[in-house]
């Protein structure tokens, strides 16, 4: 079982540049057709400062971190045992290509279901841009599979 003493653990903050090539690859991967996510001129014509990051991209910025699975190392969980359980975003301001985003996070809950066969780790993150504006808050719930039925 994952030790609940890790609730409250503050993850190492990290800072990441929002690159337009990355945004375009994301858009291509999901089959985006809305030109404001693909074409800077279309984005500007629609009133955006630059290419906007789509609604779930902050999750990706959080992974663009030298050690995106830091919490798994901390908790002693193998990458092959995790699934994504839930994901939530609360939006405060847009994220654009060219922004520099700093993300701070904390493990806020650890609990289990089905007699320990499934464990849940909740992390909350706050993302702030280069002007100090809070852009988005995220809550990530990771599911850890324990095929042996707990005690893994």
């Amino acid at each position, binding site marked *: 079982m994952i030790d609940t003493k890790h609730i409250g653990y503050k993850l190492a903050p990290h800072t990441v540049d929002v690159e337009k090539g990355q945004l375009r690859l994301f858009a291509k991967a999901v089959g*985006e057709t809305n030109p404001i996510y693909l074409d800077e001129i279309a984005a500007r014509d629609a009133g955006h400062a630059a290419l906007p990051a*789509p609604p779930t991209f902050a999750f990706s910025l959080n992974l663009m971190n030298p050690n995106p699975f830091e919490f798994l190392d901390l908790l002693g969980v193998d*990458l092959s045992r995790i699934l994504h359980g839930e994901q939530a*975003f609360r939006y405060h301001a847009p994220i654009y290509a060219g922004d520099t985003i700093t993300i701070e996070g904390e493990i806020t809950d650890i609990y289990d279901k089905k007699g320990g066969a499934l464990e849940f780790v909740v992390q909350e993150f706050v993302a702030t841009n280069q002007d100090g504006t809070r852009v988005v808050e995220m809550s990530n719930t990771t599911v850890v599979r324990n095929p042996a039925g707990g005690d893994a």
Partner: protein
Amino acid sequence: MTSIPTEAGACLPSLTNEPISRTTLALFAGGSGDHNPIHIDLDFARQAGMEDVFAHGMLSMAFLGQALTSWCPQADIRSFSARFVAITHVGEQITCSGKVKERFEESGEQRVRLDLWAVNADGDVKLLGDAVVAVE
């Protein structure tokens, strides 16, 4: 201006993406920064007890996000969340849909809460979500 209807029960136009291929998963691993090999490396997936690689949950959530931004400007979205109900497999085709649950006032603006869902071609639910969107 948003085109989202505001009466409870109103349905939003569904969005069906291309079927998910292994190429989709490779591109999304690069595009999304999620390099977990369970989505792109068959050997790793099998060692982890899976029959095959499977789609990133966030790929289907990105599809839901695309549906959302086809219904309203992104700047109107106040919150967006999803629960990953079932694994999405290679070859499946995801359709995203939404419905107005309620209209309410919050923080001095009119908002609607949308129920969202993503299903495969057989109608099996993969994601359940909701979003709060500002309306006129």
